[in-house]
């Protein structure tokens, strides 16, 4: 019987298999950042162990880093201490580090792909749940905890139970104005935050094949929000074209050998998935969340749901609690929701195509009075690219704040946060209570919806912009 993409990559990394034990998998690439690594390095020191494969390990700084005044000492002493700990650990053990201020610094899941380190058929791990991003290349990429970080540092392997596989097949054409973000939010709303539990998801079908690498990364990034172990997309010409010429992509004969291998990484026609979900791309529209988990979403044209409409008691209770926290009323049109802040950035939507899409919409327009718009490139390189295209000027002229690379307002670990009761439209990945700052209220949206929302002051799509003042947004 044929094998799925996930099974092929898994099988190629089994170091040891024994009855009744998890498989021992070899890890091709280990990404580190400051938050989930200190206790792991501490563990190595206590047990007198070193890093087994420095040549498969790389670190950057992202969660704690400020996005303003990056040339000045970090104001928060605890954040500063954590970054200094990473710097000391990397120096002591010999790990390559791209610290704040370095041209290769940025959100870890933006940095790996842009350096060409994330490649098809590799196993990638990082102490961060959004490691699923790297699956866009046909890599098997897992978010891991700190004990596992220590385990990989010491052994370059991980014992793991073989996951089940689920096909998410998206056929057809995404309607104009509907993006990868809308698609993944709709998928999560459909299968639920626990729907992917125990599975590696494989996104496939004609709508997926047409997506750019960056859009594929947006999709795979949020696999974890459906509870999945990982998300993957089979590598194809789009993948190879993205990789060729990147700093760590193979060259010459190695490139040819790599591409020959990468072309084998497709689910066989006779392979059987443990579960399958089929989605019609043509039925989708801009999608936003109204609640406090990423599964609580609806088309922008819909209204806030009535908790009484849920048959399941725990879902009903969750919806009631979410509406209370979010300060929303059942039946209220989603378009009527006014926001204080718009955040464009994160490992979900902080790449150059995302910034271009948002810039196309705000170009020649103004951010609404009383709305703060933050635009944060996912990496220093993305920031430089945006500046070279003049996007920073577009954002600044519209009244948005142009920042330095980092995780920024995706999570409350650095100075970019919502105040209690403040509401955001955010291109990030989690709308949990307090995620963007204590008491903050988050609506997850695409970069296009974020930009239109910034201009109009309430949740909106580019199609709602009826003014003639600005040129028609391109590529939307």
């Amino acid at each position, binding site marked *: 019987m044929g094998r799925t993409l996930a099974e092929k990559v898994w099988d190629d990394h089994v170091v040891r298999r024994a009855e009744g034990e998890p498989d021992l998998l070899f890890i091709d690439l280990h990404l580190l950042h400051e938050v989930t690594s200190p206790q792991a390095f501490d563990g190595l020191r206590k047990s007198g162990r070193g890093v087994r494969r420095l040549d498969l390990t790389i670190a950057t700084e992202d969660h704690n880093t400020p996005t303003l005044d990056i040339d000045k000492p970090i104001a928060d002493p605890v954040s500063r201490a954590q970054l200094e700990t990473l710097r000391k650990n990397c120096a002591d053990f010999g790990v390559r580090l791209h610290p704040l201020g370095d041209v290769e610094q940025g959100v870890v899941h933006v940095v790996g792909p842009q350096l060409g380190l994330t490649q098809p058929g590799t196993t990638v791990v990082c102490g961060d749940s959004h490691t699923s991003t790297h699956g866009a290349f046909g890599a098997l990429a897992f978010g891991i905890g700190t004990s596992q970080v220590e385990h990989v540092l010491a052994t370059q392997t991980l014992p793991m139970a073989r996951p089940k596989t689920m096909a998410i097949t998206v056929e057809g054409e995404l309607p104009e104005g509907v993006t990868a973000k809308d698609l993944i939010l709709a998928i999560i709303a459909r299968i639920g*935050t626990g729907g992917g539990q125990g599975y590696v998801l494989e996104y496939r079908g004609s709508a997926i094949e047409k997506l750019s690498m960056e859009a594929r990364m947006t999709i795979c990034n949020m696999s974890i929000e459906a509870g999945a172990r990982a998300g993957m997309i089979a590598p194809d010409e789009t993948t190879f074209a993205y990789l060729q010429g990147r700093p760590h992509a193979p060259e010459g004969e190695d490139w040819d050998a790599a591409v020959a291998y990468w072309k084998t990484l497709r689910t066989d026609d006779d392979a059987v998935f443990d579960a399958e979900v089929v989605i019609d791309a043509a039925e989708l529209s801009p999608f936003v969340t109204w609640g406090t988990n990423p599964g609580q979403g609806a088309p922008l044209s819909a209204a806030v749901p009535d908790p009484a409409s849920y048959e399941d008691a725990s879902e009903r209770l969750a919806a009631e609690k979410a509406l209370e926290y979010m300060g929303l009323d059942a039946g209220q049109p989603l378009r009527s929701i006014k926001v204080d802040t718009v955040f464009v950035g994160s490992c979900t939507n902080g790449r150059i195509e995302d910034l271009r899409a948002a810039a196309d919409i705000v170009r020649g327009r103004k951010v609404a009075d009383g709305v703060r718009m933050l635009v944060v490139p996912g990496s220093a390189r993305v920031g430089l690219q945006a500046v070279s295209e003049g996007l920073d000027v577009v954002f600044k002229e519209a009244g948005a704040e142009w920042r330095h690379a980092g995780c920024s307002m995706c999570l*409350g670990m650095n100075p970019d946060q919502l105040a209690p009761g403040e509401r955001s439209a955010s291109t990030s990945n989690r709308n949990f209570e307090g995620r963007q700052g204590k008491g903050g209220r988050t609506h997850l949206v695409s970069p296009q919806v974020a930009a239109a929302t910034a201009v109009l002051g309430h949740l909106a799509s580019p199609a709602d912009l009826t003014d003639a003042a600005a040129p028609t947004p391109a590529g939307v």
Partner: protein
Amino acid sequence: MEAFTTHTGRAVPLRRSNVDTDQIIPAHWLKKVTRDGFEDGLFEAWRKDPEFVLNRPERQGATVLVAGPDFGTGSSREHAVWALQNYGFKTVISARFADIFRGNSLKNGLLTVVLDQKVVDALWGLVESDPSAEITVDLVAREVRAEGITAAFELDENSRWRLLNGLDDISITLQNEEDIAAYEAKRPSFKPRTLQV
């Protein structure tokens, strides 16, 4: 890792689903560089409400958390497990756990027990009507017991063996050094490298 064989204690009923790791330990606590001192951050936002179940006097000293489905979703932060342990919890019962959280818990000796929602409902009913009621989680027998309730639970034999013996994963893996070296020797040259060593 501390071994887990059997544990008996009073319980906290947490009637919430989708308790994500940002609720268990908010991000600003993640700046610490140690594995301890997270107890005050556990459920920090909810604990501001004096009526929150963890704040009730009858729940002080409880060691068993009985939670709604999809416990531990979201971030991979192991700090969520450390916070529960630092606070004093030895075991968490739920109908469904997020994968990464579950893996983290079992690597730290915090036993996460999956039971049918019907059994979780019965446990909630019991400990809400009698806060002094104790729950026993027996890993040897793979069974949860409380007054009028006995429920078997599943845990794969390998995880159970590691927990019962408090074994350290890294030392077990390093016993397979030869296998790792053999795998490394046959890796193709086109695989990416972060630096030349």
